[in-house]
């Protein structure tokens, strides 16, 4: 068929950009206006209810709360990262018992709410007080802070193990075979060939996991750890001033956004050699 051979050669110019006020722009402007109004309302509310006394009294508490939140996330992420290595190894092994144990561990910690896990460790282990006292671990399980660290570390270890496993499995098998044919040992291959490629894949999920941990860490306020959320709840219960929650929201939001942008920057930086 010579169906419009000449026509298919001629490249159509792109349609002209919409001018004036199409429906999408009207809706978009209206929604932006709503956001602006909300933002303005919050700013006005904060200005109107500005109270230097309140600020002077609670700002140090918020700062220490922020410190507790960051410490909790950093400590449990590091412990979780260490724990995740053997779990990921077991998850990839062909040994049925190892595999089954790791699979069960990951399934349990990913399938149940973090809040329930935290309760199970903090309140649940209280049922075994005599036994724990006998082996000298009671002073550990008595403290909400240690229980929170334990729960969060175990939880993030499960997620990080899956991230690690996914990243290592994303590297094609030929890379292993190539390294083996060069006479490299297994561990050497892992360090020099596989991990550098896997970590590029893993960076974004790791970043998301840290962000999820920051957001998830708010629940330790319920078991009386005074992190940022805990300090907020305390300030609210003393003043009944809603701005306490707004300040917490602003702090959390800027924390998470800073982290997200930092991760994007790192990702751009370490994938420079892949750009063409």
């Amino acid at each position, binding site marked *: 068929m010579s169906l419009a051979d000449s026509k298919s050669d001629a490249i159509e110019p792109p349609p002209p950009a919409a001018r004036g006020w199409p429906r*999408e*722009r009207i809706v978009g402007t209206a*929604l932006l206006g709503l*956001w602006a109004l909300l933002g303005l309302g919050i700013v006005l509310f904060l200005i109107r209810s500005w109270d230097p006394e309140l600020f002077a009294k609670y700002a140090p508490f918020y700062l220490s709360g922020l410190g507790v939140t960051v410490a909790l996330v950093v400590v449990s992420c590091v412990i979780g990262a260490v724990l995740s290595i053997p779990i990921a190894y077991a998850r990839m092994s062909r040994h049925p018992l190892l595999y089954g144990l790791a699979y069960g561990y990951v399934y*349990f910690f990913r*399938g149940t709410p973090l809040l329930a896990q935290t309760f199970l460790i903090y309140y649940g282990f209280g049922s075994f007080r005599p036994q724990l006292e006998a082996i000298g671990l009671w002073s550990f399980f008595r403290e909400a802070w240690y229980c929170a660290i334990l729960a969060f570390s175990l939880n993030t270890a499960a997620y990080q193990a899956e991230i690690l496993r996914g990243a290592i499995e994303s590297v094609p098998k030929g890379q292993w075979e190539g390294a083996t044919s060069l006479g490299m040992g297994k561990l050497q291959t892992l360090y020099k060939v596989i991990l550098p490629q896997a970590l590029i894949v893993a960076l974004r999920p790791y970043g998301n996991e840290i962000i999820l941990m920051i957001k998830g860490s708010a629940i330790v306020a319920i078991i009386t750890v005074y992190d940022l*959320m805990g300090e907020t709840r305390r300030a609210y219960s003393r003043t009944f001033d809603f701005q306490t*929650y707004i300040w917490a929201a602003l702090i*959390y939001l800027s924390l*998470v956004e800073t982290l997200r942008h930092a991760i994007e920057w790192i990702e751009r930086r370490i994938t420079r050699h892949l750009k063409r």
Partner: protein
Amino acid sequence: MDVWTLISFGPEGWGDDIAYGVLVTVSLALATLPLGLFIGFMVALAKKSDDRTLRFAGDIYTTIFRGLPELLTLFLVFYGAQIGIQQAVRLFDPGASIEVNSFVAGMVALGAVFSSYASEVFLSAFRAIPKGQYEGGYSIGLSKSQTMRLIVLPQLIRIALPGLSNLWLILLKDTALVSVIGLADILRQSSIAARVTKDAFLFFGLACLIYLALAIISSIGIGAIERSVGKADMQR
């Protein structure tokens, strides 16, 4: 008392209370799902729009509700709505006192969080559908909404399904947070049982196992849906 009496359904046991908690958790999650899907889809439409203002409005929504801790969102909705409605009502009736229903507050807060993540899932699914699908629809004379409904949406659902089922499992876990604002879900009922009977490990362990069972049931259901969607794909 031994374990089986404690979790039995009789007057001595806590089985019936916890079963009620399961009902509350499941109905909260099921009620949130359509709300979150609808808002998420709308936000995704806004974010894939050609218009800058609409895209920006959608991005603000996602940034806020993805960046805030779920618990804080819940408190903002619960206390914020309470204060807001109270002040509005006091204009007419100065003595009035308003209680916000914790189920509705939980639904709104979890729906907001769910929809902001769902919008990202829908957005990437939209990007996976080639432009030729739309053009093909227009070229056979379908209108914009017909193209969306008859051509794009069936493919979109299939692409978005794995991401959405992940979000459903997250939603199921996030419902545990509403126990903090006093809704009698699984976790709250087990907390009460733990406090009364002093058998905390038993009841929180039971709560974890129930959540696990719900996750397993959901996975089976999702698998069935994925298979049936896949079958429809094969028949074409």
